[in-house]
């Protein structure tokens, strides 16, 4: 009787243990599904946010391009055509016709070249053809043309990322350079990129007056926009600043598709 009772106790303990295991598995399954659903929702929310931000970036870039285009039409192409008109007028009034007309022809040729460059900027497939390096060089040329600021670019690494991500990265760098010019009053801006494993670091360094990155009051829309975009790309952005200038490090994964 005692041995049987002992065996029954062991059986009951065993059964209770397996019952608890079964209940534990059920609870675990429900908990896991809930966690997975939360993760899926968060992922789709971030994806939606990324696409919203991308759309905003596209519009910003288009707007910036249009502004630059307007300025170019007025300051460059307009001036070249005006010069040509003046030269033709001079040729009509003076005897030195051949030389003046040659100069006028060269000026018109220059205007045509400028016009071709401008039409490239207005291309419909600009996003499909968007190239971070080319656009950054064009940005540097525009800034350097002022002769008040020197912007240098050192990109030894070839960017291996989708066009939309290149556009996002370009906007972040553009935002950082604009901050250097507007708020930092910098005269020298250096941009360089380094790669470590799959992470690409783009650094924007200036010799401006600097700011306190820990002071929330100093973190304007531009700074927050860089942070937000870097986060959406699965990366981060860090600032270090002092009286000698500001360094912005933008870290983004290279091969991630969003």
């Amino acid at each position: 009787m005692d041995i049987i009772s002992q065996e029954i106790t062991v059986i009951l303990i065993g059964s209770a243990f397996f019952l608890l295991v079964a209940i534990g598995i059920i609870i675990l399954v429900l908990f896991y599904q809930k966690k997975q659903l939360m993760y899926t929702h968060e992922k789709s929310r971030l994806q939606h946010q990324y696409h919203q931000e991308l759309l905003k970036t596209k519009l910003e870039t288009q707007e910036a391009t249009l502004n630059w285009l307007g300025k170019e039409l007025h300051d460059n192409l307009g001036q070249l055509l005006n010069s040509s008109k003046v030269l033709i007028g001079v040729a009509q009034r003076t005897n030195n016709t051949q030389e003046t007309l040659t100069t006028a022809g060269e000026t018109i040729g220059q205007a045509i070249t400028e016009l071709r460059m401008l039409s490239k900027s207005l291309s419909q497939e600009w996003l499909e053809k968007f190239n971070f390096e080319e656009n950054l060089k064009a940005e540097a040329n525009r800034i350097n043309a002022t002769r008040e600021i020197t912007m240098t670019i050192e990109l030894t690494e070839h960017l291996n990322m989708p066009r939309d991500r290149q556009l996002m990265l370009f906007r972040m760098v553009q935002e950082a350079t604009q901050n250097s010019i507007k708020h930092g009053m910098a005269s020298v801006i250096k941009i360089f990129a380094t790669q470590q494993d799959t992470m690409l670091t783009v650094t924007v360094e200036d010799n401006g007056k600097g700011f306190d990155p820990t002071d929330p009051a100093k973190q304007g829309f531009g700074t927050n926009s860089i942070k937000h975009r870097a986060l959406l790309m699965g990366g981060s952005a860090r600032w270090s600043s002092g009286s000698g200038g500001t360094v912005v490090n933008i870290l983004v994964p290279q091969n991630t598709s969003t």
Partner: protein
Amino acid sequence: MKFFISYILEFLAFFANFIALSVFCLKISTGFRYRLLCAYYLLASALIAKTLLDITVNNAHLYSILYVITGLSVSYYFYDLFTSAGKRLLAIAVGLCTLAYYLLSLQNKDIIFDSVGYALTSVGIVFLIFLYLHQLFSNITEEPLTNNFDFWFVCSQLIYHLGSFVIFLTYHRLIEKIMEGDYSSENRAILTYLWGIHNVLLFLGSLLTASGLIWILSRRKSQLS
């Protein structure tokens, strides 16, 4: 009360499952796997009812039939539930193993409860349950699991088969031990009491299935209104 738990509760559990699945077939889905389960629970209820007609006679052969129909029906249920060919093949294998073991055990002419047959069926079903959970995790949907009747049914099977596994495994040996030693009414009462525990687990499982059905029906009703 002891008589109720040791004898009647088993019939009630099977019959409750039959009712729950019938309601599910009538109101929600007429899928073949549910109709087959309905038929299985009806047959199981009939078998248990037969054992209740005279509780003094040996009913081991009826319980052997019960484990083989359980193995076959639940294996088919999982076969229909699985989406991958590999998992389906494993469901067929579990069903065939149960049937093969039953056919082999028929030659033994053993008159005692077949622990190995029951344990084999339970292990097979628990294995299929894990495969189903793997399938669930591989295809996470927006729909909460609690709205899925299959999930409730599988949970009830997990509680019953995993909870009763030790009882199934040791019952044959216990009967043998008591028969060889002291075949007293006290010892027999212990055996009946142990089977009562199994009945409670079976009933808990059927309660879970019924609760799931009520939950799903109430959710559907609230969505419609």
